């Protein structure tokens, strides 16, 4: 028994790319069916175009690099998911309200608060007991390198969004505890400006190439790193 028009339209609306022989036979069975199918094809083409989100540059490389250099991959620790459940998820959840759904931060300060609330605590937890061995590889893609004194104390490092494109988020293992550094290759900041939000303090650093924010618990801890950061993120053109 052939498919009636009502059933055909239901299938057309549910699975327009259906290649079932019965469906295809019905499609060509009359001008009415054919016309409905052609209209559905046009709609589907627009729908597919609407859904086609552009891909970020270097997506696959970044996935592979993220997994390759994850501390979880080598250590396969069992403690951190529990730590996450206990503390970080709460922080992420609360922070989610403020995490921008677009990159239209009105200032570097607003971005830093937003970004740190998003995954600052999570990165600090991940950094515990870790030692990043991919510091230069990550920074080199942004045409900078780390001086040995900086590279030696980076626990974790990853790419992150900044107001002006891709940047780097790293956590340093210092004598004052973990300190976060956000490197922003194209953002302009007021050198030495201090910020305080939630339970952390931050200082902004103008660099030879771009800028950075040093974020951690306590003014002393972040201020002491000012000189190190200012002199240790070096444009590749100078270091080579």
């Amino acid at each position: 028994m052939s498919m009636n028009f009502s059933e055909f339209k239901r299938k057309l609306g549910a699975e327009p790319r259906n290649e079932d022989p019965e469906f295809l036979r019905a499609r060509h069975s009359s001008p009415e069916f054919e016309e409905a199918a052609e209209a559905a094809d046009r709609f589907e083409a627009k729908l597919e175009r609407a859904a086609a989100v552009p891909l970020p540059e270097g997506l696959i490389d970044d996935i592979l690099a993220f997994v390759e250099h994850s501390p979880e991959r080598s250590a396969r620790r069992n403690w951190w998911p529990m730590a996450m459940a206990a503390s970080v998820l709460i922080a992420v959840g609360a922070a989610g309200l403020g995490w921008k759904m677009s990159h239209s931060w009105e200032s570097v300060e607003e971005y830093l608060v937003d970004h740190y609330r998003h995954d600052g605590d999570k990165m600090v937890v991940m950094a515990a007991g870790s030692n990043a061995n991919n510091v230069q590889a990550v920074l080199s893609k942004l045409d900078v390198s780390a001086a040995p004194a900086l590279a030696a104390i980076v626990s974790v490092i990853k790419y992150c969004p900044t107001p002006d494109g891709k940047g780097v988020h790293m956590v340093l293992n210092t004598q004052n505890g973990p300190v976060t550094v956000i490197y922003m290759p194209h953002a302009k900041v007021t050198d030495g400006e201090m910020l305080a939000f939630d339970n952390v303090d931050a200082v902004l650093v103008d660099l030879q190439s771009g800028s950075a924010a040093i974020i951690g618990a306590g003014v002393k801890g972040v201020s002491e790193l000012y000189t190190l950061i200012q002199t240790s993120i070096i444009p590749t053109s100078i270091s080579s």
Partner: protein
Amino acid sequence: MPVMNTEAGRQAKFNQLAQAYGTDLYRYAMWICGNDALAKDLVQETYLRAWKALDKLNDIGAAKSWLITILRREYARTFERKVPKFTDVDSVVVPDDIELEPDDRTEIELLRQGIMKLAPKYREPLLMQVVLGYSCEEISKQLDISKSAVMTQLFRAREQLKQKLRKDGVTGNVHELF
């Protein structure tokens, strides 16, 4: 693909999964969380979990749905209970396409807004079909609902999008759609 026991073999298998499905996963993630940085984080976390569980993947043919399952769980675990739905359509920005006529561009913008405003029970199967290329059977398995229910949701999702175009008074080609 044979299971390889060496570290190099494991890495090769993993690289293949990243190359084959990374873009689909990112696009899907982008639509469910609405922000490219979060989508990228979600995909990276998904692959990290996949790496740790790679030995459990015996059938490479099932890899895509396995990865989608991980991604959906990761999304639910990390964000769903804690954060309001990320449905800011302005964040799903697709660059202007110079090939498009103005009417077509308007329709596509309205469709993007419409997709983000669909209820999750309609949006998710629609995105699985349009972005991931899933059949109704595959969606049924992924969402653990009947094929008939999937077909109904897909039909209604498209009807709501068409209705939005009609309601917003798009002229031109869109008239041919109904």
